[in-house]
């Protein structure tokens, strides 16, 4: 099979680990690594971490590429080699051979002027006239497969953030359930209400709905709250990874969030497919609203026994512990389906 070696040098003027560090933010690679090696079947990718202070000349870039290529399992069996640089500052020009690769190396840049890395690659690959059109299309397709790998990791970040919305409450409810007697349970509940911090539960539910399906994005508390720099929601990542929204687990996730599925196409920017139910029908919403009311009542009636005892795991119609356990299982179940997508095989400490 014809194989292409693609080398991408990320933005080299951004501060390492900062918000503009392309290697960490866009490619989701750890900031302490110098490169990422992704050996696909038809295409091998060497992603070189560019950051401010790393390179001070074109020669330094050449040397870094050469070193990392040697550390990775780069061999001489490639049909072509493409080097894409985000920055033009230390752009490689003229003749260039990568360690062990005898084929001709094509050089290009990408970024705000040259378009995205994907577009730059498409352009360079299309110009590889020595290779068959089938091979060129295969490489383009293979490069697009890297997106699901990154999307899967983003999904893990999103799940982690969603879990954090409700995990402290789960721990508290668990403690209330396990407290040995009513006196310690009352003390416990009082302590929860006295020391609890963070957003109201209503806001947390809104965040959950926004992060899952971009519903309730007009609410001020959830705007710009996405834990992902890309701003993608869970269902967008699902689509990037090629899963169907008609999947049973996806439908269950939407149901657990208390959203109504109207069917049709999903476009994150206009919420036609998913929406919140009317207040009277919103079982999940009313549960969290009630929790907030208990909190407020406690603030008014200092340490009121009646108020604090309202706080408990079996309040209202929703069994929170069961609901949250299932929410985690469903999200992780969806994430598990993507684990067959390979992540990094190389590395570089």
């Amino acid at each position: 099979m014809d194989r292409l070696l693609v080398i991408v040098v990320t933005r080299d003027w951004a501060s390492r680990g900062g918000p503009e560090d392309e290697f960490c933010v866009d490619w989701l690679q750890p900031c302490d690594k110098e490169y990422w090696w992704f050996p696909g079947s038809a295409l091998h990718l060497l992603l070189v971490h560019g950051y401010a202070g790393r390179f001070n000349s074109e020669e330094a870039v050449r040397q870094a590429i050469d070193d990392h290529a040697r550390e990775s399992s780069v061999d001489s069996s490639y049909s072509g080699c493409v080097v894409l640089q985000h920055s033009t500052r230390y752009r490689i020009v003229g003749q260039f051979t990568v360690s062990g690769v005898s084929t001709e190396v094509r050089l290009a840049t990408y970024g705000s002027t040259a378009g995205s890395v994907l577009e730059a690659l498409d352009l360079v690959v299309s110009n590889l006239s020595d290779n068959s059109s089938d091979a060129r299309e295969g490489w383009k397709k293979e490069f697009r497969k890297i997106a699901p790998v990154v999307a899967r990791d983003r999904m893990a970040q999103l799940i982690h953030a969603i879990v954090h919305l409700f995990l402290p409450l789960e721990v508290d409810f668990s403690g209330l359930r396990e407290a040995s007697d009513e006196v310690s349970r009352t003390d416990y509940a009082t302590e929860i209400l006295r020391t609890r911090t963070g957003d109201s539960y209503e806001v947390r539910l809104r965040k959950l709905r926004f992060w899952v399906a971009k519903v309730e994005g007009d609410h001020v508390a959830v705007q710009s709250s996405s834990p992902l720099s890309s701003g993608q929601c869970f269902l967008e990542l699902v689509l990037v990874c090629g899963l169907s929204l008609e999947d049973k687990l996806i439908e269950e996730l939407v149901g657990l969030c208390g959203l109504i599925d109207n069917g049709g196409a999903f476009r994150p920017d206009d919420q036609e497919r998913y929406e919140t139910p009317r207040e009277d029908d919103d079982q999940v919403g009313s549960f969290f609203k009630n929790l907030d009311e208990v909190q407020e009542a406690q603030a008014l009636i200092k340490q009121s026994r009646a108020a604090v005892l309202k706080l408990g795991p079996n309040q209202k119609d929703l069994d929170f512990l069961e609901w949250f356990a299932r929410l985690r299982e469903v999200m992780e179940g969806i994430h598990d389906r993507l684990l067959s997508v390979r992540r990094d095989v190389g590395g570089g400490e």
Partner: protein
Amino acid sequence: MRVVAFTRSTELAGSLRRYFRFVHGSDVEICSQGIPAAAAGPRGSTFDGVATLVRDLAQGERNKTGSGWIAILDPPSEAAFRLTNLNPIDPTAESWGLFVATLVLAFPEMHVLLVGPSGLAASSLARSAHRLSARTLELMRHVAVSGFGSLTLLDGTGLREQVRDLIRNKQERDRSRPMRALPCRERFAVSIDEESSYAVLEAYVAFRMGFRACPITTWGVASEVLGGKNPVPGAEAQPSGLPWSTPDLVFEDLYLNFLDLPARLPDAPKISPTERRLSNLRYRDDVFERLGDAKRKDNFRRVIVTVGHRRSSTLLSRWKENLAYVKSAGGHLRIIYKPVAGMFSFIRAAGLSAKTFQKRRRNPSVGDEGSHSAPGRIVFVAEVLLGRASHMLASAKTAVEAIHAAVLACEAKELLVGKTPTTALEAVALQHEAEVAAESMFLGVEYNIDVKQRFNDIQREVGAVAVWFAPGQRYRSSLNARLTIAERLAQRFSSLHQVEEELACLAHARKLRFDLWVREKPWRWVLWPVLRYVAFTLASLGRFVAGVASWILLFAGVHYVLHSLPDASGAARFWHALASSAYFFATLQPCEVVRHSVLIDGILAAQGFVAFLNLGLLISHLYLTASRR
């Protein structure tokens, strides 16, 4: 209970503090820094930071008391997906994945609870039992009540096996798998006994024979692990619903009086109310769903460990009913009466030393094309384990603490798969030391402990490690290691006042020392038979008497054949020769009637040397007896 939480979330930290204060009465150590900055240094090794943290935790442990240990690991959101690679020897693994994997291996008793998705198999027990949730917190409460604060020490939840599986299958660039010989624990065992010493000892025996194991000492843990019915009438739900494995091996006491036994035992429709008691095995199998399921498994083994008293006719008839039930239920049944004569006797009595169990313990060097050294990170983990085991053993006051130390040493030994020989031998030595300490401290083990099997086991294990030494040095290195271990065991027995076992170890060490001595110079091989004889007869007074009697008989035969006593004939001549031989042995003087010739005088001289040697041995025996405390 010690609880350490690695989280940056102040809200979660607050909830955890409240929970553990109100439910367990313990504080939570919060590490809000996460993995230290050293792990994210520009060119430094990621593992450096992890190693520093692990060492700090091991050091901190020495200033703490209590058996339970929970670590809550909440990576920052941007590192959450890195928990998907929990392989400590993978150079591409990220700091959080490395940290979790290293903790799991270096602190087997620590129950790790993860926040966020992990790379553990989706359907596995390990995944659900190690996720921070209401279910696992409830499980931790049941474990805390049990007095033996860990489900993970013997890998009951299978998390360590999953990390080991990743290590086992890690390929180098040349496609070799240097850790492919890492032992595998596929099967699951439980030991049920309200006496934690017995439960832990039995579970450890299963662990030693290649099972993941879980000691069960309370109703709460039994219900969690074995799927107990809810005692509340009409309620069928399991308390936790975690997907525990059905056991392949069960050690169980017949009479169970759990401290948290519910006031009303669960209903069992097929069993009359008067028969509903845990000593009724039919009822027990009905109440604990996975015990009932286990009977249908191939090669299921049930070992009843009981004092076996049947003082009344009622107890006798119940015993017979139970026997009839378990025999009809199928599977292998063994009955062991308390007390037991040490671990090896226990293994034999439980039928675990059969070939089917031995063959899984393969020689680590078989088919291994890798180097003699284990990966550096594995050596680091092994050293942490050995340091902890050594410290724990030095301060052990109970059999359970000594077994804990033995598990740590056993883990280190297995992780090294016989490579890095010096550290591997240290692990073997420490494991055996901890085991004999446990046997000696435990009143449930008979006064005299079986040490012969232990020497065989040491020889086998040391032999497996010694394959990495140069062929010319292999046997000598093996002898050297066995000698050191035997002497350390003798010292251990001595400090625990196990006199007979100490002498047995010293006798074994003497034999090994003689073997080692003759190998130093070729001419010493001439003395080898004499040294062997000395070692044999000094092992016990009985052997000495047998040795002397054999010499007397031998020389009597020689005198008889050579007609050295010419006056007698036939049977009388033989008895005369025997008496003469014995007389010479006792007095070093020949009988007056003995015929003298060069040959006969030469034989008498040889007999004199033998008698003199035996006199020396007798004095040695008397000294050894007199010098006992």
